[in-house]
């Protein structure tokens, strides 16, 4: 399946996976992550249930310090 991850098309094996699996596959381990799938905010408690499928637009934002 192909998804848009942070404005870039990326291809993954399989038809769909959870947000948690996507983070694992991309090795995103930072603790202050914001995930949006098709514009919807996915809470941390939903990482293992929220699904990412072909054609989805996923934003992964690292909330780093500074302001």
């Amino acid at each position, binding site marked *: 399946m192909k998804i848009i991850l942070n404005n870039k098309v990326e291809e993954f094996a399989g038809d769909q996976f959870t947000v948690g699996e996507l983070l694992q596959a991309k090795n995103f381990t930072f603790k202050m992550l914001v995930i949006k799938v098709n514009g919807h*905010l996915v809470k941390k408690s939903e990482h293992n249930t929220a699904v990412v499928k072909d054609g989805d637009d996923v934003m992964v*934002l*690292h909330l*780093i*310090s*500074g*302001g």
Partner: protein
Amino acid sequence: MTFEHIQQILKTKTVGIAGCGGLGSNCAVALARVGVGRLVIADFDLVQEGNLNRQFYFYDQIGMLKVAALKQNLFRINPDVRVNTFDIRLCQSDIIEIYGKCDVIIEAFDKPEMKYLILDAVHNYMPDKYLVMGVGMAGWGDNNLIRSRQSDKLIICGDEKNAIADECPPLAPRVGIVANMQANAVLEILLGSNEHQIHTEN
């Protein structure tokens, strides 16, 4: 659009700024200069000497509440700007109450937990509102890493890479770039995109 026309539109607008450090103070100054009618600013902190390497305060304002010092500075630039100040540490209900009537909200906190708090509050309770965040501006150089991107009504400005560290402090140039990028994003939201921009052909 002429500057007069721009001012006519902007003077009817209210922009909320959450945090008055490097991002918030510089962003507020840019918005006051172009004539945004009302700014709603919040910060619990006092001006400290260490802030002066990037934040829009003056040496003789050390010890003042940041919101009071910033209001003073904004009036010196544009006496017509209306400024609502809140010297509090914002929680979720404050964010909803204070920024609920703003046309756009600027996130200008330093701590990731606070950045998350406002993102969550806006998404869950004010989903129709634009939120312009600043993420990643510490250090120096790497001009080309600084950019912005948008997902629905969320706009992210910054390099999304350089967190603050002892060896990577926040400094005026990059902090100012991101703060002004946030202000620029606000103008695009309030005025629409600039169709009359002149692009030089190569």
